Each structure stands twice: as C-alpha cells, then as structure tokens.
C-alpha cells in the first residue's frame, strides 16, 4: 500500500480561532516540505456555532518519488483520522459522535473546559451535560489522549486557545515537524507573539507529561469536617447542638448555621437549629427512614429559605470588602488599577413595601393609589457603589438588618416557612419519602421579582397536590417529577402537562 496522508481535524467553536490554527498548520507543513490541503465549513457556524476544519499532510518527497500528487479528501472520514484537536470538551464529544475518534488510530487533543451551549445555559436550574460521563467517554475512545484545561492555560499566558492547541499538538508528536517550525509560524504571524509563544511552550510541555487525569468529577463543596471548638466562644453552645445531630447531617447544618448568622444574628441561628432539631427528633421516630435524608434536605432548604434575598441582604452583600476583592479579580483589573462599580437596582413597589415595617408595608400594598403613585418613582436605579454616596446608601440599607424581623417581607416568608415545615412534619411519619421531596421543593422558590413570583406559584401548585400524593405509594416520585417539570419552562407548560397526567392517571 502506498504512503497515506496524515489526517487532522480541528473541532472548534465559531470565533475561537480555529481558522488561525489551520493557517499556522499550513505554514508549518509547507516549511517542513509537506503538501497540505485544508478545508472548512465555517458558514453561519462562524457565529458561535460548532465548526470543523480538516487538514491532510503528505510528504512532498513521497509525491516526487511517485511522480504524482496525492488526491486529498475534503472532509474527515469516520475511522480515518490521525488526530483530532478539540477546543472544548463537548466538541471533543461531538467529534466522537461523528465517528472521527477511533481507539485504533486517533490521538485526541482536547481542552477539558466547558463552553456551555445556549440550551445548557438557559435551563432554569441545572442544564449542563454530565461532565464526568462525557470525560469517561472521551477517555475510552481515543488511542491517545491529551486532555487538560486549555482555556486556563491560555488565560494564564494571556494568550488564546489556538496557541495552546498548537503547543499541545507539537508536544504530542503526532506531526513529524520540528518544534522550531511551529514556533516560527507563531513568530511570522506577528500578533501577540510573546504571549502566544509562552502559551505554546506551556502547552507543549504539558502535553508531554501525558494524561492530566482529569475526570470531570466536581469537588465536594461541603467540608465533612465539623470543628469541635467554635472560633467565637459565645457560639460554642450552637456548635455543640450541631454536633449532637446525626453525623451525616452535621456538615450541612453547620453551613446553615453559619449562613443564618451571617444573614441575621446568633438568635436567628438558634431558631434555625430549633427547627432542624424538631425534624431530627421526628426522623428518629420514623421507623423506615433508615437515613438522614429528611434532616439533610430540610436543613439545606431551610437555611436557604431563612436567608431569603431581600433588599437588605442584597445591599449587605454588595458592600462587603470581600466583594470588592472578588470584582477586582473577575474583571481582571491590573494591580492597583482604579475601577468603579455600578449596580442595577430596580426595586418595585412590592420590594419597597417588603422592606417597610409589616403594618406600614401592607397598608401601602392595600392602597392601589399609593402604589400607583410610588410606582412612578421606581424606575431603574443605577447605584455607583464605589462612590461615597452610593456606598453609604447601600451600607445604610444593609444595616437595616437589625429591624428585619419587623419587615413585611420577613413576616411573609416566616409564615411560609412555618407552613412548609408544618407540612413536612405532618407528612414525615405517614409518607417519609414524600416529606423529603417536599423539603427539596424549596429549590423552586428563588430569584427576585417576577422570577420569585413564578417560583412561588409553582411551589404552591405543587404543595396543592400533597393530599393526593400522600395517598399514593409513588407520591414522592410524582413530586420529584412535578419539581423538575416546574423547572422545564418559564410558561409552566410542562408543569401543567404533568399535573394533567397526575390527575388523569388517578
């Protein structure tokens, strides 16, 4: 059989520089006296879609020996690709989906970072594909795998992912070309040469070190360690109470206590603990529980609900020193560089009333004329937190937390929390798994303004099914289905459909 070309595919996202990479490879190949053909189908995919470049390399010497030039294909063929460069993890998956990565042949050089697709990003909750499974698949399909976070490598070197891919390709040794030739291509392009060379070299060394062992598994967010001594002595009794709870539940309860103190004060944390302890006592009485699912789910949801995001909380978080540090990092300000921060606040009459003392707040909301009048002043407010006046406004609002317990919003939320806890307690002995699902359903109540209202509506309509669900052995499964359906679309179509099914089946 005659000598065959080396076939290489670049799977990239529109705008990621796949074209630049292909151009570099052409230059390198020609400098190394190879014949090269490159094609692409950018088209509309140039605008952020998935796009593919395909190159074939053939030694000019072999063509001269044969007296003819090889005929090169214009697209990659399943099972006939030597190397796939994927600029993102799901694109590596897509190359596998197209059959381009085969265990007997293909070296896969991929970045382990994710650029989420619009479908994944716009989910109302968790919409991303399972990275762990995706990584497992990728690892199982390639003959050889070079996998590391190339976005991070690019950013560390203030470069772009195409330089990193080029470096990784060079380091992998798939192409019989010299390192100097690769570097020369970057140099002749004349753009950001120093940074690109640094990223190239970083990636080259990295790819020679082999598999980074990336698994896609998320690190646990809650530390399993529960300290024995509180950092503040006065809080030791609270910590002791946490430590008397079942061990499995302690980390989440501890996190809850911290959160509630941060939100309000130690007294509020005591209330939190009392509520958790009542659930713990209940769980002990349920013979078939066998786990601490209820106390864990309730503690998690309760901590979130008790720290609902009112205007006071938002103002408090926005004015913290730690936030200023985080913003500085996020916007990549140079050390010492000045920057301002502008907030986009749009409190509606409801939020204003919610922050007022309960009596005054409800009186305001009961008066359509007053609401209408006030509504005229509620347009968008831009607050410059970095200025003294802007900061003082938010700081003062954040300081209102000492009066929070008297606000209308607090009264409302507290009543809702108690009603919800009441239902959990009622259900726990009769239908334990349903109670656990009810505890989890708090996840629906989140966000601000209309989002919060929508979540609350959905939550209520699910709670409205509890009597029916309690009579069914598969009640918990149903509640979980309704929970997911409520997060399927904003208009509530999926939830309506599921509710219809629930009632149709009964």
């Amino acid at each position: 059989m005659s000598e065959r070309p080396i076939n290489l595919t670049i799977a990239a996202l529109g705008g990621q520089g796949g074209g630049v990479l292909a151009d570099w490879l052409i230059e390198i190949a020609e400098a190394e006296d190879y014949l090269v053909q490159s094609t692409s189908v950018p088209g509309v995919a140039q605008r952020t879609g998935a796009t593919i470049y395909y190159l074939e390399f053939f030694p000019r010497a072999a063509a001269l020996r044969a007296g003819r030039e090889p005929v090169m294909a214009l697209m990659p063929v399943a099972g006939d690709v030597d190397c796939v460069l994927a600029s993102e993890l799901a694109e590596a998956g897509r190359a596998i989906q197209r059959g381009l990565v085969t265990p007997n042949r293909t070296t896969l050089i991929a970045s382990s970072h994710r650029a989420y697709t619009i479908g994944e990003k716009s989910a109302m909750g968790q919409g991303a594909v399972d990275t762990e499974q995706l990584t497992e698949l990728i690892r199982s399909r390639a003959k050889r795998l070079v996998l590391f976070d190339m976005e991070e490598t690019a950013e560390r070197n203030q470069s772009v992912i195409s330089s990193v891919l080029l470096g990784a390709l060079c380091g992998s040794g798939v192409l019989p070309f010299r390192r100097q030739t690769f570097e020369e291509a970057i140099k002749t392009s004349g753009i950001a040469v120093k940074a690109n060379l640094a990223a190239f070299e970083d990636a080259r060394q990295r790819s020679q070190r082999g598999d980074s062992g990336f698994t896609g598994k998320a690190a646990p967010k809650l530390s399993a360690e529960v300290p024995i001594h509180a950092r503040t002595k006065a809080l030791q009794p609270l910590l002791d109470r946490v430590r008397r709870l079942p061990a499995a539940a302690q980390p989440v309860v501890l996190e809850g206590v911290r959160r509630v103190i941060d939100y309000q004060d130690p007294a509020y944390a005591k209330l939190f603990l009392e509520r958790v302890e009542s659930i713990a006592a209940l769980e002990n009485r349920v013979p078939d529980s066998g786990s601490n699912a209820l106390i864990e789910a309730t503690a998690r949801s309760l901590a979130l609900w008790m720290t609902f995001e009112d205007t006071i909380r938002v103002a408090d978080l926005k004015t913290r020193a730690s936030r200023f540090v985080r913003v500085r990092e996020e916007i990549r300000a140079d050390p010492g560089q000045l920057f301002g921060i502008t907030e986009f606040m749009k409190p509606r009459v409801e939020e204003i009333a919610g922050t007022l003392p309960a009596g005054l707040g409800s009186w305001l909301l009961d008066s359509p004329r007053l609401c209408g009048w006030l509504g005229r002043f509620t347009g968008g407010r831009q607050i410059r937190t970095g200025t003294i006046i802007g900061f003082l406004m938010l700081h003062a609002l954040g300081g209102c937390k000492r009066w929070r317990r008297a606000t209308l919003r607090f009264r409302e939320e507290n009543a809702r929390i108690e009603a919800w806890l009441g239902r959990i307690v009622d259900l726990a002995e009769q239908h334990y798994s349903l109670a656990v699902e009810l505890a989890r359903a708090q996840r629906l109540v989140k966000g601000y303004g209309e989002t919060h209202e929508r979540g609350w509506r959905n939550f209520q309509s699910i709670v409205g099914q509890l009597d029916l669900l309690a009579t069914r052995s598969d009640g918990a499964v149903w509640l979980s289905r309704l929970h997911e359906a409520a997060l399927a679309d904003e208009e509530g179509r999926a939830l309506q459909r599921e509710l219809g099914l629930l009632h149709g089946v009964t």
Partner: protein
Amino acid sequence: MAERSFAKEVESLRLGEGEEFHGEGILAVTKALLQSGVAYVGGYQGAPISHLMDVLADAEGILNELGVHFESSASEATAAAMLSASINYPLRGAVTWKSTVGTNVASDALANLASSGVKGGALIILGEDYGEGASIMQERTHAFAMKSQMWLLDPRPHLPTIVRAVEQAFELSEASNTPVMLMLRIRACHVYGHFKTRDNRRPSFSAADALAAPARDYSRIILPPSTYAQEREKIEIRLPAAQRFVAERGLNEIIDAEAGDIGIVMQGGLFNNTLRALELLDCADTFGTSRVPLYLLNVTYPLVPEEWVRFCSGKRAVLIVEEGQPEFIEQSANQILRQNDVGACIVGKAVLPMFGEYSVDALRLGVGRFIEQWAPQLRAGNAPARAAVSAVSAAKLAALVPPRPSGLCTGCPERPFFAAMKILQKEVGALHISADIGCHSFATLPPFNMGNSIMGYGLGAAGASAFGTDGGKRAVSIMGDGGFWHNGLTSGIGNAVFNKHDDLTVIIDNGYSAATGGQDIPSSRAPDPHRQGNNTIIDAVKGVGVKWVRRTHTYDMRGTLKLLREALKTPVRGPKVIVADGECQLNRQRRERPLMRKAIAGGERVVRERFGVDPDTCTGDHSCIRLSGCPSLTVKDNPDPLRSDPVVHVDNSCVGCGVCGEVADAAVLCPSFYRAELVYNPSAWDRLMARIRAAVIGTLQRRSERNRLRYAL
C-alpha cells in the same frame, strides 16, 4: 469594511508567469479571472463566495491597473443584468453569488441573458451552498442550467483544475455564445491548495470601446420574434457547439482501469471524496489511481452523448455519483444509453442517498454496495476494507453532546431588540413574526425562538402581506438593512404602503451586510472613496410613502419597548416602520479596539466597561440568559455549598455593550449584575477621589467585617 482584510491575498493576485499561488479556492478563482482578461466583475456577497467579493474590494489598485471594472452589486439580479455587457460586445464578464438563493434572485436576468446569447465570455461563479455548513434550503443549481440552457461546470476541487476551468469557461462561453456557470461546493471554496500562475491579462476590449461605438443587434433583444429564433438557436447551434467544445478540448476526463466492465461517473466536484472512498475500499491508491474506470464530469451540463457511449460501451454496470435531487444526470444517462443501444446498467440513487451531502462516509457505503454487487472480485483476495468504526450508542452520545446552534455574537446590537420583543410578547401575547435572512435569522433559534417564517432575503415585510389588513393584532416583520437595500424597500415597504397594510416592519440597521462578512451597503456610514454611503434608510422609507417612521437605538431597550408598544397600538393606519439602529459589534470592535489600545499605550485616560455577576446574589434561575443569550454570559458551578443550580457568570469576552444592565432593568430581573468601569491612566483627580473613597469605604467595611467576625463559627 469587510470582516476580513485581504491585503496579503491581494498581493498574490499580482503573481506572474510560472510563480506559485498558495491560498483558498475562491481566491484562486479570483486570480484566474484576472488571468483570463476579464473586463468587469460584479456579484453579491454570501457564504461561501464572500471572499471573492472581499478580495476584489480590497484590490482596487490592481484592478485599476488592469482596467477591470468591479462593483458590489445591489443584488444578484443586478449582477446578472450586468452580464448584458457581454451580449453585444466582446467583453469578458464574471459575476458571483451564493446559490441557489442568489440564482433564484438572478434568474429573471439570467433567463433573458441565456436567451439573447453572448458574444463576450459570461461567467457566473456560484458557491453551491449545499450540505454541511449550508445556511439555506437544499436545492440544486443544475435545474437552472437545464431550464435556461446555460452550461454548468463542476470542476474537481483541485486548484489547478479550478483555475483551468475558469479559463476554459470563458472560451466555452464564447465558442457557444452561452453564459456559463461554474459551481464550487462550500469546502471547495475554502480548500487551501496551490497552482502555477500566469500573467494577468488586460481585457482586449474595454467598456470605453463599447461606449465609443455602441453595437446593436435586434436579434439579441428578448422580444418576439427574436425569442423564437433564440430558442431554436439554443438547441440547433449553441448546444452542439458547446458539446463539441467540451469533447474536443477534453474538459471531462476519462480514466481507464483494470476492472473494465464496470465504471463510475461522477460530478467533478465529488472526485476527491469519491477517490478517498475508493481508497478506503482498497480500489484506489493515494494518488488517485483507481482500479475502476472513471469518467469525470467537470462539465455537468450539457452532457456529451458520444463520451457516455464511449465510456459505457462494453460495461455491465456504471455507477453515477451525483449529489442532490432530482437525479438529472442519472435520468439523462439512461436516456442517452437507451437511445444509443448501450446495455450497461445505470446505478445511482439505488445505492447512494437520494438527498443530502455526499460525505466520504456516504460514498464509501454506496460505492461499496456497487462494487459488492457488480465486481466482488475487486474486494476478494485483497486486504479487507478498513474496519468499520465501532459505534458508541447514539442515545448515549446525544445525551452527552449538546447541540450548539449559531447565535448572535457577543455584544450584538440585535440582541437587545429581540430581548425587547420577548418582553413585549409577554405583555401582549404571541405575535405573528415574519422573519428575514441575516444575522437576525438567528433570533429564530434559542433563546429567542421567534419568527414564524422566512421567505428570503429582504422578504420579511412581503412575507407578512396576507396579514396586512384588518385584524386584531398587528403582524410584525423583521428586515435587516442588507435585505432592505437588496429588495425589501420595494418588495416589502413600497408594497405595504401601496396596499395600505396595517402592520409593523422593524428594520434592523447594523450598518453592514453583517451576516455575509460585514460588507458595506448603501446605508453604511464609513467614508469610502469608491462608493457613496450614508444613504439613510429613514429617508428611503419616507420616500416610498411611509408616514409612521420611528428610529430607536437598540441598546435603549426601554425606548425600543415603548416604540414597539406604540406601533402595535397606535390608531394610525398604514404601515409602521421602526428603524432599530445599532452598529454591528464585530465591525465596531475591530475599529475601536486598536484605537483604545493605542490610547491606553499613549497615556490617555480611558475608561473601559464590562459587566459582571455577583455569585452570592445570583440564585441560578438564568432568566437573564433566556432573555439575552450573549455568548459572554455563561454559567459556572455555584460557589455556595448549599446551592446546586449553577450561577451566571460573565466571561472575559464581555465587550461592555450594556445590554445586561438594560435587560436587568427592562425585565425587572435581579440585582446581581454590575458594571465595572476600569480606568486606565487615571488623572490626578481620579487618584485623589480614589484615595478619599478608599478611606471612607474601607473604614466602614472594616467595621462591618469586625462585627461579622464576632460571630465566626
């Protein structure tokens, strides 16, 4: 100015005799035009031939030297009509566009051109937008060639062959007095390769020569009785002349081989992929030596019956590799062979897909079936075909590999408009939206999901005509500035005025033909010595009689929303037009980024804005993403140990367009967004204020921090 600069490529247009050109297929075509002594070039941009237009637009100097007239035509119809210069004069002309959409637009002029016949070579270069990466409905250009009797070249995707095809096309056109189409598939347009160049040629006859001595020949005018004579001429004179030229000059290639009793006929453009399929079936080598005889149609219309008879005689079966539908070549082949009493069995779509791109995978399967059936000995005794790929379960892959549709770019000015439309529909209910071609077509995709139909470039308003009169809710049409100048001004706006439509058309004015690569159009604002820009859409709309015209800046979402509400409610009858203004962010960044970098480097005080999201106040509902869909607006793991839903995150590609703030405000979203204003080269005042602020704010923050530490657990 176009998205890509071709300053470097323009230089390769100057290469002379015996030098080597390296570059993209479509640029090789451009060079071939100059080598052919073309006198005038026109066309309309669109993938995959945009680069031909872009490189010529950048090549003003060299075109002037050669005396070549180039223009960006207003539409494909304009470009096709331009070819009329070749009817009466020995002028070589070439035009280009995306097919079949552009050919549809051009076909009135093309049909007349084909009927009149040409004296000078008339070449139409078509980017056949078919298969993977195509952005249009899937059809074949072949039908146009047949209906109008124009010739269609489909050369091998190999630069020397493509270049030769361009040169031969002019000769063919002149030898048969017929316009010639040369089609290149998407990948062929973008294929990188090389060829030996020849000197450019000045056209031997110029437009000035023609104007100095106008020629007129009534037999070339498309009115009866000439039209009847022209039809006869097409069949009796031009077709045989073309077939003779193709045969004598050997435009098609017949390659004999060992398995002489079967054969494969293919469109030239499919040669490389078919050869690769044969190689993978062990029926060819890397250099294109096939064990099966091949007949390559670099000219797919007209066919040359004698060649078919010669190739097929003595063969038991012949496979026709013909992409797309209907299978015109296969039908003709059957007819030719029956009429000439050649018994070979014609196999085509029986083993190959009836529709869709002929990928190497599809070809390997189809050609494999053909060989299995007709020449199994070619496979027996040889190494088995390379093992098929073991497949991962499709369902598993589908769950792990999310679709990645195209979308509006980071900072796109059209985003806030469609976000406003989304909010509007929450208020007034769903609207009938007649969409159009352009970047705004992406609004039909997630997260906007709006638009009920797309009828063609510039036809958004025309597409809503049936809903133009009385009815409850008003229909809304979308049109881009590109489509507006292409034909929308008359087909949509003028029509709506004349027929008293009571609807709303929104013209998205981003300043360029942005989707095709940011080319200038009549309303583009940057000064260009070769063109007159700055012709405003508002003036044009008023000029055709629209009374209710408003302008809004898309980034002002509240203003846009107010106007949209008004347009739907106003008692004013007649068409309402809103011009939604916002410069294409790609073009804008390309212009402004270097300026900003320079200013910063030069020590000027510069403020750069970008957006961010506070992860501790974001609750992971992602309403903002559903309203905006900006690529820089993404998600990341929730840092909160108690929460699982990912939080929104603005990545470093944010250009600070301001939409996030507008969306948060207009949609009453959440307070998590912030805008950061980074100051470069701060003034003394900046530094003083920063010191004072840091002192006051720092003191208060430290006090709060102490309070929190009192309760550390």
